[in-house]
């Protein structure tokens, strides 16, 4: 089991390392950017999960159902 896990790890590292030489012109395109949302995520209407700031929409109340 340990040897299988080690082999998978070596294959994974080897696979990732081999990607270092790929053409990145498409990967670096702005449309492929993970960090920035071109469109903001939708607001939440029932819960305030996903934001410690409280619910969105100006009502400020993080535990109200609106």
């Amino acid at each position: 089991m340990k040897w299988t896990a080690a082999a998978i790890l070596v294959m994974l590292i080897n696979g990732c390392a081999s990607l270092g030489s790929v053409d990145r012109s498409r990967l670096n395109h702005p449309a492929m950017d993970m960090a920035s949302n071109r469109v903001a995520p939708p607001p939440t209407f029932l819960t305030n999960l996903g934001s410690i700031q409280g619910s969105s929409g100006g009502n400020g109340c993080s535990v109200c159902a609106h």
Partner: protein
Amino acid sequence: MLGMRPLIWLFIVLAPNGAWGATPSVRVNFSSDSRNGPLDVSNLNRQFRLSQISEQVLGRLDNLGGHYFVESGVTLTHPDYSSVTLVDATGKSRLLSGDVRGTVEPTAEVTAGYAKGSHSVQVGWRGALTDTPFASQLLRATVAESFFAQTTTLGLSLAYLGQAQPDSFFLDKDFLLKLRPNRVHAYEANVSWDQTLTENWKGRLQAGVSQRVEERPLGLSLIARQRVALGDRLFAGLDGIYAEEPGGDLKNERGYFQQFGVTASISAEPIYDFLVTVSYGVLWERERDPRDLSHVQVAADSYALALAFPFQNLEAQTSGRYVVTNTGIKSVSLTGSLLWKL
């Protein structure tokens, strides 16, 4: 917006092109959000309508000393508190908008960072400049490290929030009036793994833990994102989110929250650098309360369109989003952004 002019000029004077090899830029953002529909899912006849706009100016210096950047700015928010109800100690309710009317809430923020090779670090602060009903101070720190010629990136982000709240009471499950906390502390920690999978495909996995300590139980979240290049000028994205409060003490009248969402997007570049993105998403939100065995679900469909186009040393972005829920709430948001590389 007029109040921001001195800030813009100050930035232009303090950030001459070439100072310490720095690359200055200014970004102006605008956003508006309006929504209407039933205020309370248990009483669909109680309607609300609100509209909020905000403007933001950010100045940024990149390549300071070769590897540092600093960004600061001010946001002016015109809040709409017409749907926020406050309850006094006798159980009588009133709207917060009756106490706060026609105000502009300024917020400042500063972020500084360092990036060299495969290492990057940034720290930031954002806080209210005036005493507003929900004034908050947020501290955030992010560290990221890349491996294997930057095909793998691991990140850690930590945030701490302190937020004021106006005095208000709520009716608990034993029909007793209790005071809500008028100061909330919150924290959030996320770890992320960005992975290049092929020359046309990359993905991100992000796991997080967060809590508004005085109000809510601990929350867990898992986000998965994928971006695929379908060609040189056509791209697709698929994002999924799952978040829940698995257990712990319920500290007010609300039950445990759960959320599941999927968003699919297509981006096309019909002419050089002009990017059009359309997206559709659906978000399910659930609340279950074991104290009274209640179970509520709200689902929302979200349709969005975004445009991005550079023009010489300017870069403009605009987006619109329409959201409608199964309970009849409709929301329209518009954003605009202009980046000026000085």
